[in-house]
C-alpha cells in the first residue's frame, strides 16, 4: 500500500494506491497519517481510492478509525472513487449511511464547501 498526501485548498487528500491489507501493515497506517494531519489542525479529510485494487476488513477498520478521529474533532471526512466491491460491502454493513462517498475527487472536493 502506498499513500500520498496532498492538499487542495483546505482539504487534505490521501491518494491511496495498491492494496490495503492486514498483511501490509507499515509504520504509518492510514489512520496514523490521518491523525497526524488532524493533529496539524486540518479538519477536511478526503480519501481517494481511485488506485486501490483491494481493501480488506483491516483496511475498512482503518477508514472507520480515521472517520471517528475526524468526527471527534468536528472535522469532515469523505471518500471518493471507491470500487464497486467496497461500495457493496459498505452497503451491506450500512456504512453508506454513515460515510459520505462520492464518485470522484472533484465532486467530493466541491461537497466540502456546500453548506
Amino acid at each position, binding site marked *: 500500500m502506498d499513500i500520498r498526501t496532498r492538499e487542495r485548498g483546505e482539504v487534505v487528500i490521501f491518494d491511496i494506491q495498491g492494496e490495503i491489507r492486514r498483511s501490509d501493515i507499515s509504520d504509518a497506517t492510514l489512520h496514523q497519517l490521518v491523525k497526524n494531519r488532524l493533529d496539524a489542525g486540518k479538519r477536511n479529510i478526503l480519501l481517494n481510492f481511485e488506485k486501490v485494487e483491494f481493501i480488506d476488513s483491516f483496511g475498512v477498520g482503518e477508514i472507520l478509525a480515521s472517520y471517528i478521529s475526524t*468526527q471527534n474533532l468536528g472535522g469532515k471526512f469523505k471518500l471518493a472513487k471507491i470500487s464497486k466491491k467496497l461500495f457493496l460491502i459498505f452497503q*451491506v454493513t*450500512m456504512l453508506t449511511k*454513515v460515510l459520505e462517498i462520492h464518485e470522484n475527487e472533484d465532486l467530493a472536493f466541491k461537497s466540502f464547501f456546500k453548506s
Partner: protein
Amino acid sequence: MTENRLYEFLSRFVDIRPPEARVSLLLFLYLFLITFPAYIIKPVKESLLQASFSPQWYPLASLLTAVLIGFVVSWNAKLLNRLPRRLYISSTLVFFIISLFLFRLLLTFNWEGLRLIYWFWSDVFIATSVTQFWIAVNDIYNPHQAKRLVGFFVSGGILGGICGALLALILPKLIHTENLLLICPALLILTLAVVNLLYREHPEERDGPARPRERGRSKSGYLESFRVVRRSRYLVLLACSLASATIVSGVIQQQFLTITRAFFPDKDERTSFNGAFLVGLLVFSYLLNLLITTRILKKSGIKTALLIAPVFLLLGSAAVFLVPAALMLGWAVMVKGGEKSFENTLSQSVRELLYIPVPANIKYKAKTFIDMFVNKFASGLGALLILFILNVLQVGYQQLSFMAVVFAIIWIGLIRLIYGEYINIVKSDLERKWENGDTIVDEHVDVDMTRLVFDTIQSREKSSVLYAMNLFDLLRKEKLTPELKEIIACKEDELRAKSMGCLLDVGGETFYPEMEDALAEADVKAEIEEILTLDSYKKVMEDHLEKTVQDGQGESTVTRMEAAKVIGMMGPTPSAVRNLRRLLQDESAEVLTYALESAGRLRKKELVPLIIRHLGNPQMQQLAGDTLASYGVKVIGALREILQKRDENLEVRRAVPEVLFRIGTQKAADVLSTELGRGDERTESEVIEALFKLKSKETTVQFKGEKILEAALLQIKKGYQGVLEQNTPPPAADQIVMTAEVNNRLVLRIQKIFELLSLIYPLEDMVKAYQNLCVGTKKAIDYSLELMDNILNKDLKQYLFPLIEDLPVEERIRRCRRLAKGLEKLAP
C-alpha cells in the same frame, strides 16, 4: 314385526344398532339351525361307533378323519373360491340333506365300514357347517360389530345344541337311533331358507368371493390354502393356537372317558350320564354365554377372553394330582365341562373374531384350512401322542395331565403373540386420511427463508442498504440458490431499466449491478463478517443508531427499518439492545418486523417482555412467536408466567402454547402439562393443540400419563355435559334433542380427547383412529373403534365409547347419563 320393533325387542338382550337387527336375527337362527342337527348327528355317530368297535379303536376314527379331511379341505377351498357365497353354502347344505337320507337308507344294512364313513361324514358336516356360518359372519360384520353381537349368535348355537341334545336323549327309545337322522334334513332345509334370506340382505358383490374375471386367475385348493397360511405369521400363529387347544381338549376327553368308564361300568348308566352331562353342559354354556361372553369381550377385550380357557385348563389339569380318587368324577366333570363350555362360548367366539380383520382374499382359504384340516390334524396328532403315552410309556390317565399342561403353556404363549399381531392387522386396515397441516408446512416450506426472500424483494424498492443486508442474510444462510437469484433478478431488471451507469441510481438510492454475484464471492462474504465484528465499526454504527433511533418517528420508516436490521447483524452491544428496545415499540409494522427479527438474533432477556407484547397483535403474532421460539429454553420461564397470569391479555396467553411447542423441549412440554392441569378453559384448546403438535414433532418428549389421563377424562366429562345439558331432566323419547351446535361442540371435544390420548398412546394409532372416525367408511369407523378397544385402558374406553360410537341419540344420552356419576369420581 317391523324393523323398528325388532330392534327394540333385540336391544333388550344385545347391544345392537337398528340396521343390524334383521341380519343379526337371521344369523342367530342360522347358528341355531345348524347346531340343532349337529347335536343329533354327533350322539348318533358315537353310538354307532360304540356299537361296532371296541374302545381301543376309537382313536382310529379320529385318525381317519385327520387323514381324509385334507381332501375335503381341498375340495371345499375350490368351491369357496369359485362359487358365489350364497350358492356355495346352499349347495353344501343340499349335499348334506341328500346324504342324510342316503345314510338313513344305507344304515339299515348294518355295514361296519359305513359307520366309519358316517363318522367321517359327521365330522365333515360339523366342521363345514360351523365354518360356513362364521364365513357368513365375516362377510357381513366387521370386528367391532361382531364383538358386540357374537354372544347373541353363540346363544342361538347353544340353544340349538340343547334342543338337539334333548331330542337325542329322549327320542332313541321311541324312534330308534338311525331314525333320528330324518329330523335333520328338515332343519337343514330351514337353514337353506335363512342363508338365502341373509345373502339377499347382503349381496355378494360386496362380500362374496373373487369376481368372475379374478376367479380364473385365483388359485384354490388344499396346497394353495396351506401356502396362504404359511405366508402369514398371524395365520400360522392362529393355526398353532387352535392345534394346541385341540390337543389339550383331546387329553381332557381321554381322561373324561377313562374316569366315567371307571365310575359307570354299566353301558346304559354311562349313556344316561353322558346325555345328562351334555344337556347340563349346554345349559351351563348358555348361561355362561348369556352372562359372561359379551361382558368379557366388551369390558376386558379379546386378550383376556382368549386367555381364560387355557389358564383354566392349565390349572385344572395340574389339579388332578391334588384330587382324591373319590372326587375324580367331580374333577373330570369340572375340567371337561369347563373346556367344552369355554369352547362353545368364549373361545369359539373370540377365535372367529380373530379372523375378521384378515384381508378377505386370504381369509376364507385360511379359515377353512385351519378350522377343518389343522383342527382335525391336531386331533389326530393328539390321539397318536396319547396312544404313545398310554401304551408305550404305560402311565395312568393322571400323568396325561403333563401333556395338557405343556400344550396349555404353548397355547398361552401363542395367544400373547397372536394378540400383538391382531392389533397390527387392525391398524393396517386403517390409513391416515390427512397429514397435519403444520407438519406439511414444516416439511415443505422454510417459513423463515420465505419471509426473508419477501423482505429482500420488497426492500429492493425501498432501500439499497436494506436490500443488500437482506441479500447478505440469504447468503449467510446459504439460501441464495440460482432459482432464487433468478426471481430476485426479475425485479432487478425492472429497476435497472430505469437508469444506466456504473452505480445505478433509483429513487435517490444507489444500486450495484450484479450485487448477488459479487456478494456470493467468498472473500467478500468473509470480509463483511469481519467488519461486523470490528470495534470501530460498532462504535460508528452505535453513534449512528443513537441519532437515528433517538429521533424516533422523526426519521423515515425506511431508516428505522435499516437501523432495526443492522442491529441484528452487529451483535448485542448495550447500545444496540437499548436501541432495539425502542424499535420494538415502533408504530410501523415494517419496522417492527425487522426489530423482531433482530431481537431473535440478539436473544437478550431484557427484550422478552416487549416481544411477548406483540403476541397479542394479530399482525405480529407469528413473527413474535418465531422470535421467542428462537430464544429456546431461556424464555420458557417468562412464557410460563404469562400463561399462568389470569389477568394477562387473553390473546397473548393463547399465543404462548404455540411458542412453547416451537421451543419443543421437555421443559416446554412440562409447562404445557402443568397448565393443562390448572384447567383454564380459556387457554385449554391452545394448550392441548400445542401438546399434540409437540408430541408429533418431538418423539422423545415424555408426558405424565396420569395427568394426561385426568385431562382426557375431564374432556370426556365435558363431552357428557354437552350431550346431557339439553336433555336434563330426562325428556320423553320423542323430545330428545341433539342440536347441530351441541354436535359440533362434541366433535371439537372429541378432537381434543384424541389429541390428549396421542400423548400417552401411540401417536400414529390415535391419529389414524381419529381420522377414520371422522371421515372413514362404516367399516373404517368400526376398525377405529376396535383399535381403541384393544389399546385403551379399561376406564378410559368405558367412558370414551359413548361419545365416539355410532349410537342412536337416545342411546348415547342414556349411556352418558348412566356413566356420568362414575366419571365424576375420576374427573371431579
